[in-house]
Structures are given as structure tokens and as C-alpha cells.
């Protein structure tokens, strides 16, 4: 859903990241536009999660510039950073729900921190979020340990969406889900993205997710963005890793499935 003049929400320039003396990212340039779902792929260990964690500030970078919502995160002071952090939501791979809080408290946590709302409205918003991600209100009082893997992901998504973020980061959202749940989850992300028109940055290995919901795909190889573009660009690419990735047996099956639907 790229607009005529798409606004850039994440701008990464010449990013270099070392991890334990090993250069993982070496000059990454990447733009993420407002209102798009960007699928981010790469071989295991290529540094996809490293890039995501660097953008959200969990890992230090050696060189380069990262701008999120037109704010350079290096130059931002504490307040600006916090203002940015309030405008993004992150879904971690394992959900990262706080195990000592109930589902409701988990979703209310960011709302409570950033907004001054009445208890009633806060509870209603938490339930709104839970219902938006397809859960029933009765999970509100449960603890994360009482939930299945798919439900944990949904609750974590509800928490990531708690403050209506403009950017949603997803780290392998469908890993560990069965194909039906993974498909449902993809559709959920797509619906939510279309209704609130946020930018979604999705690290994934799931070819079906790439085919069905991503507007654009970026490929990380050799510490750089090897290629970025639509699915058609990817399929036409001569990049050897991309050919192996999208034209391998699993890639073909996924493509057929999409063609048939």
C-alpha cells in the first residue's frame, strides 16, 4: 500500500554492527515506508535479528545512522527517545510476556506507564486490544503460563499494539506456530496493519507470510541489504541465495499455494 509519496519511517544508513569481535552488519542501508509491511529475510545467522535489535536500541552500533520517525536516535535526548519508544511496538520471538503479571496487566503495562487514564478505561482498552487480536476477554485474568504458544503470541501482539504504535516490529511472528495458526496470525497482522495503517517491519523465515502479506521484501546477505523490492522483484532476481530461497522446493510450494488461492 505504498502511497504516491511514501513517508520514510525508518531510515538506516551505512550501519555497521560488530558482535563479539565479529562484523555482523557491514554497511546496511534500508528504508521502511509508512503504511507498508516489510518482510525481512536472510539465512539463519545472517544478522536479521541483530538489525532489528540495533534499530530498537538493544544492541550498540559501531557506525552509521538510524532515524526512526525522522528522529536520529543518537542525537535524541531521553525525552525524545521515550517519545519514539512510545510510538513503536515490538513483538519478540517468544512473546516476552512478563510471567509474573496476568495477561491483562501485561497489556495494560505500557498504557499505565505512558498514559494517565482511569482504571475503567484502561481495562476496557486492554480488553479492546485482546479482542482485536482475536482473544476472548476471559484471558484477561490468566497468567502467561496458562496459555498456548499461539495465544502467547497474540497477547504479546496485543501488548505491542497497546499504544497504537506507528511502527510494529515483529521478530519471526509465525515461528513455532502450526501452519493454520501461522496463516491466521498473518491475516491478523494484515488486518490490523490495514485498519491502523502502521508500518510493519517483520523478520521472518516463513515463505507463506512473505507471499501473502508483505508489500516489500528486503534481503540481508553478507552483512548488507542484498536486494529489496516486491515479491516479483525477488522472484526475478539472479542473486544466488535468493534463487535458492524462493525457487527451492518450499518456495515453489508456497508460490503455488498463493497462485491457487
Amino acid at each position, binding site marked *: 500500500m505504498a502511497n504516491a509519496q511514501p513517508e520514510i519511517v525508518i531510515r538506516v544508513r551505512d550501519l555497521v554492527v560488530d558482535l563479539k569481535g565479529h562484523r555482523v552488519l557491514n554497511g546496511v542501508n534500508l528504508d521502511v515506508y509508512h503504511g507498508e509491511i516489510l518482510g525481512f529475510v536472510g539465512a539463519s545467522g545472517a544478522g536479521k535479528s541483530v538489525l532489528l535489535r540495533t534499530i530498537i536500541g538493544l544492541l550498540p552500533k559501531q557506525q552509521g545512522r538510524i532515524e526512526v520517525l525522522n528522529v536520529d536516535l543518537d542525537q535524541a535526548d531521553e525525552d525524545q527517545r521515550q517519545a519514539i519508544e512510545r510510538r513503536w511496538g515490538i513483538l519478540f520471538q517468544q512473546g516476552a510476556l512478563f510471567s509474573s503479571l496476568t495477561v491483562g496487566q501485561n497489556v495494560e503495562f505500557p498504557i499505565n506507564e505512558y498514559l494517565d487514564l*482511569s482504571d475503567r478505561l484502561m481495562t476496557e482498552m486492554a480488553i*479492546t486490544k485482546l*479482542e482485536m487480536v482475536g482473544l476472548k476477554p476471559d484471558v484477561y485474568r490468566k497468567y502467561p503460563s496458562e496459555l498456548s504458544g499461539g495465544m502467547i503470541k497474540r497477547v504479546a501482539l496485543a501488548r505491542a499494539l497497546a499504544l497504537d504504535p506507528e511502527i510494529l516490529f515483529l521478530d519471526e511472528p509465525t515461528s513455532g506456530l502450526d501452519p493454520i495458526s501461522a496463516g491466521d496470525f498473518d491475516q491478523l497482522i494484515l488486518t490490523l496493519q490495514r485498519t491502523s495503517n502502521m508500518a510493519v517491519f517483520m523478520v521472518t523465515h516463513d515463505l507463506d507470510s512473505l507471499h501473502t502479506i508483505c508489500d516489500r521484501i528486503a534481503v540481508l546477505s553478507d552483512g548488507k541489504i542484498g536486494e529489496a523490492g516486491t515479491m516479483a522483484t525477488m522472484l526475478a532476481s539472479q542473486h544466488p541465495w535468493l534463487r535458492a530461497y524462493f525457487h527451492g522446493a518450499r518456495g515453489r510450494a508456497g508460490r503455488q499455494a498463493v497462485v491457487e488461492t
Partner: protein
Amino acid sequence: MTAGTLNIGHSRGDGLELAAAGSWTAEHAGTLEPQVDAATRTNSRLRSIALDVTRIDQLDTFGAWLLERAVRTLTGQGCETRLIGLRDDFRGLFEKVRAGTHILPREPPKPNSLIVTLERIGRTMVGVGDDLVMLAQMVGALMVAIKRVALRPWTFRLTSMINHLERVGWQAVPIILLITVLIGAILAQQGIFHFRKFGADIYVIDMVGVLVLREVGVLIVCIMVAGRSGSSYTAELGAMKMREEVDALRTMGFDPIEVLILPRIVALVIAVPILTFLGSMAALYGGGVVSWAYGGIEPPVFISRLREAISIETFEVGILKAPFMALVIGIVACVEGLQVQGSAESLGEQTTNSVVKSIFIVIVLDGFFAMFFASIGM
């Protein structure tokens, strides 16, 4: 970006117009909510309300829910409520929010606290019973494993046993020596301080000698071993259980008791008596040093008095208990380790349980030993 507002317009007969404007977003939700509440607290004559949302320029789920809440409250009061002028790009979001029930299910009624306490006591007792059964099972399984290994001695995991022996025995020596020296020193200091009032300083040697060799040496060592090695056994086995390593072993036709647990327990049964011996000697040394420095009892006097005060039986009572204590610590640690479920919390919980239970059982067992040795006259 203007803050969201909700203005109450003119009423015409039984109709009223409400006009929403500005940003109906999360940041303004705190100020919007009272306005929504005020606007929906209208008088009951009203029959129809038009909520004009044309001038809302930003809407998110917070704003959408506040609008929907206004509509629901008014409808609930019997007013016919319409939204006017909802922008098309907000429609999807509004419909999505509207689809929810937004009703928090009622909290289940809290049971009587007396009943809850009684229930908890009952469950704990059943838990204690289950623990005893599991300990008995483990002893049984261990016996079977020992019999099997005795028939085919070459299948015993000697390398593994030596490895554990190094960890629970050799590597524990410094800390055990340090602790027991201190304990011996403290006992002697307290003894001298109080015995001096009666002019009976010299009997402090009897007290330290008997106490250390019979009881304190072995107890302190066992408590240290339970905290240091028992907990690590539980954590290791628990982690292996979590990663399905135990199941993998079993499917390959190995008995986890024989492969994992027997070498660990044998290592402990060998290590604890040695540590007890070293610990007791260190405690006597500590006691001797303090007697000399604080009580003025010369080392030759200390040694000759000690020789009179204790016999080989005193030493035997302490050292005989050690292997049994080791067995109990090992069995409790392994039982708890194998009970770990999938999560990290469970691992932490079982490790704590392992230490608490093994120290408790060690002390109870020590009491039984005291009665036993008293009745056979040792």
C-alpha cells in the same frame, strides 16, 4: 495537533447533537474520557442523539472505543444514537473496535479464606506423601541399577563418576575447610566465654571435640553439600529434562538412573565422608587456634586434653552418618531434578525445593541417628 473535544450542542425537543473534534488518540484519551462521561450523563427525556464526528482529524483505537462507549451508553439509556460523518479511512478501525464485546468477565467469587487455608494444608500433606513415595521409588530404582551394574561392572560410568567426584569433592574442599574452621573457632570462643565464669575453661576442649566430631562437622558439611552440589545436581538434571535429553537417553535404550543418577550419587557418597573428615579436622584446628589465642590454652595442653575427651567412637559416630546423609542429599536432588517441567520457573522452583528438602531431611535423619547411637550406647 489539536486535542480531542466533545461539545454538547443544542437540544431540539427530544433530540441532541454532540460534536466531536480534534485528535481522538491515546494521548488525549485521559482528557476525553471525562467529556464523554459528561456528555452521556444527559437527561432521560432525550430520545435521539446525533454524534457528529466529521471534525475528528485523528482517530486510533482509544478514540474509537471512547466513541463506541458513548454510543453504547446512550443506547443503553434508551436514546437512539447515530454517528454522523465518520471518515472512510477511520471506518475499518472503528468497525474493528466496535466488533468487540469489551466486557470483562466477572471475577470468580473468592472462596472462604479458612477453607483455602485448610485446602492448602491438605494439598501440602498430600504433596509430602507423594514426595515420600517418589523418594522410595528412587531408592528402588537405584537399587535395581546397582544390581544391574554389579552384574556387569564394566557398564559403570566411571569417567562420569570421577568427573562428578572432582566437582562435588575436590572443588568443594576450600569452601568446606573455610566454613568449618570458622565454626570450630566460634564454638571454642563461645565455650571459653561462658565456661570461664565457672573457671572451667579447659572443658571447652571436651565440648568442641565431642560436638565437632559427633554432630557439627557432619551437619555443616552436609548443609554445604546440599546447597552447593545438591542444587547443581537438580539444576543439571532439570535442564536436561527440559531439553528432552533424558527422554532421548531413554529412547536409545539407556536407563537414565544408571547413566545420569548412579554416578552422581556414588560420587556424593564417596565425597561426603572425606569432606566430613577434612571439615572435622579443620573445625578442631579452628577451635585449637582460638583456645590458644583467646583462652590461653597451649596447643600441647589442647591435644592431650582432646585425647582424653574423645575416643575413636566419637569419631565413628560422625563419620558413619556421612554416607547416609550423602545418599539422602543425592536422592532428593535427583528426584527434584527429574520433576522439572518445561519452564525456567519450574527449574528454579525445583532447585529451591531440592535444597530445602535435603537440608530438612539431613537434620531429621541426624536426630534419628542420635537416638540410635544413644540406644546402642555409642
